[in-house]
């Protein structure tokens, strides 16, 4: 059940929520829409879900144009950031709501509800009320409710936002497992790049209402097409006029590389963050392993050299050299295999790094 967005635009007053967004969201994959606050991610998700109507452009699900279709009839499952539990109903009644709305027979509803509750491991809490559930449990209930109607697409709006770090981590793993089990096309919105990279098969990075880049996490991390994507997806520092990843720089003894002085050393668990000042006054930092740093034997104030790490480097790739694109500039996935002239779709064959 792929989703097709064609030049979708939504304005709020004078400001653009999303502007001229064209993308293909692959069927069966877990796609993350990533971007800073206000980038238009939730807007885009709501457009897909039908809770908002675009001012321009078309939206299709599985080939069917749904732009003018009410969310009731789109057969999508939507999980809200606040979980939107029906507070006056029990968990079981919440999960069964969509089926009751479709007027399914009672026996069928009961069976399906039991099945869903088992899937999300909330069977014990079937007769509790939302007020008695924790954040993580409410999230699972929201998922069960959305999945109960067998949607063709599952949309999740900042699913991990309101939870504490440990629950977030557990839920991330759990959603990944659930997706592997159920294989429904899932689109999730988040502002946390780490979560997106860990969980998603493919990423859509939005900035200011427009798509910056789309592709697999590895592609975007290693070959960002813009400064923004580079900075957004991972740490960066400026060296020799370009932005580089701090772990792609290495500190060498004085005499080699670009001369610099160590200004600060911070131990971050396994890694060391070395802040340096170059002779021309600019500050940069290098991410080094403990072993590497200890081998150097330098401390704050010492003079050292900085150079790029030999081998793989992730540095800014100008769009022309990065990946083949459609004539109108729309990004194409699957950069490892050049398929010019074809609007690329990610499927199991050319996904790198994540085989289902």
């Amino acid at each position, binding site marked *: 059940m792929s989703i097709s967005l064609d030049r979708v635009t939504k304005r709020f007053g004078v400001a653009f929520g999303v502007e001229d967004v064209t993308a293909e969201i692959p069927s069966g994959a877990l796609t993350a829409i990533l971007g800073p606050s206000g980038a238009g991610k939730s807007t885009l998700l709501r457009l897909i879900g039908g809770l908002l109507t675009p001012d321009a452009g078309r939206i299709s699900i599985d080939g069917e144009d749904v732009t003018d279709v009410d*969310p009731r009839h789109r057969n999508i499952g*939507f999980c809200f950031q606040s979980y939107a539990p*029906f507070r006056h109903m029990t968990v079981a009644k919440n999960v069964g709501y969509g089926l009751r709305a479709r007027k399914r027979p009672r026996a069928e509803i009961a069976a399906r509800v039991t099945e869903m509750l088992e899937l999300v491991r909330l069977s014990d809490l079937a007769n509790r009320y939302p007020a008695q559930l924790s954040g993580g449990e409410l999230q699972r209930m929201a998922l069960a*409710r*959305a999945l109960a109607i067998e949607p063709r697409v599952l949309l999740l709006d900042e699913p991990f936002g309101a939870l504490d770090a440990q629950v977030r981590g557990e839920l991330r793993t759990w959603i990944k497992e659930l997706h592997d089990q159920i294989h429904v096309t899932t689109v999730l919105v988040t502002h946390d790049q780490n979560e997106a990279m860990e969980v998603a098969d493919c990423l859509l990075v939005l900035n200011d209402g427009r798509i910056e880049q789309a592709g697999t996490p590895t592609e975007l991390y290693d070959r960002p097409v813009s400064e923004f994507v580079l900075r957004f997806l991972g740490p960066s520092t400026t060296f020799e006029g370009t932005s580089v990843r701090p772990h792609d720089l290495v500190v060498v003894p004085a005499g080699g590389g670009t001369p610099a002085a160590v200004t600060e050393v911070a131990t971050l668990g396994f890694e060391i963050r070395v802040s340096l000042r170059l002779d021309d006054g600019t500050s940069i930092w290098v991410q080094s392993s403990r072993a590497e740093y200890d081998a150097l034997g330098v401390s704050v104030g010492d003079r050292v050299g900085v150079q790029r790490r030999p081998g793989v480097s992730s540095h800014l790739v100008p769009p022309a050299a990065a990946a083949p694109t459609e004539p109108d500039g729309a990004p194409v996935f699957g950069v490892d295999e050049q398929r010019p002239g074809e609007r690329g779709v990610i499927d199991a064959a050319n996904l790198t790094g994540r085989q289902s």
Partner: protein
Amino acid sequence: MSVAAPSASRRWPLRIVVLGYLAALVGLPVVYLFVKAFSSGFGAFWHEVSQPGSVGALELSAKIAAVVVPVNTIVGVAAALLLARRRFVGRRFLDLTFDVPIAVSPIIVGVALFFAYAERIGWFGPWLLHRGIMVIFSPLGIALASMAVSLPYVLRSVLPVLIEVGEVQESAARTLGAGPWRRFFTITLPAIRWGVLYGVTLTLARTLGEFGAVLIVSGNIQGKTQTLPIYIYDAWDQNYDALASYAGAVVLALISITALVVLSILRGRERKLHVNIA
């Protein structure tokens, strides 16, 4: 609230003044009402209450309430939905209009209705007369007057709850396939039920006890257009029948006190609901 109360000896002066004021102003009259009503014994009290005039007044008051409460509840909920969910030109005007009848004297409400619908002098008088509809000096007029003076109660009780609950649950229901009416009855209404009940109780209490507006529009025709408050007034004003007016007053007072109790219970429930919503 972390303010420590002052020491015991310093509390008493203010306490005595305040409690004394309340006892004299409110406590004394209320106690006296019940004492005087039952002073000739319960039998006499019951005799007065079961007089045809009194029973007729009770019936009329009840019938009026049976019409006014549902109408103003539907109107109040509909207006709350409109004000909470949609932007439109004239929002403020709608909002203000609801408050007009309780901001002005009930007598003025009655006089205004009179000049709109009275048979000869009213704007629509001749038109209504021609169709045989009598508004002023009939139960219809009393119903209109009661609707006017109890207009905003349901709206004001429901609107804040509706705003606080927000639209998320309804959006979720929509994505799950529920149509507008299903959403209203299964999601919206349950969420606002305590607010609705609170407003309904206020409306009922106000309708049963309304005096000033009804005094003008009813014409005070015994047996036909006397509500209970008018009956109480008339019993003394025309007949100096102390016991009759007393008995009626006690019945009304009991109804109002019951309403008060119900309201404070509902306030407690609503507070619990608010804790849930947060």
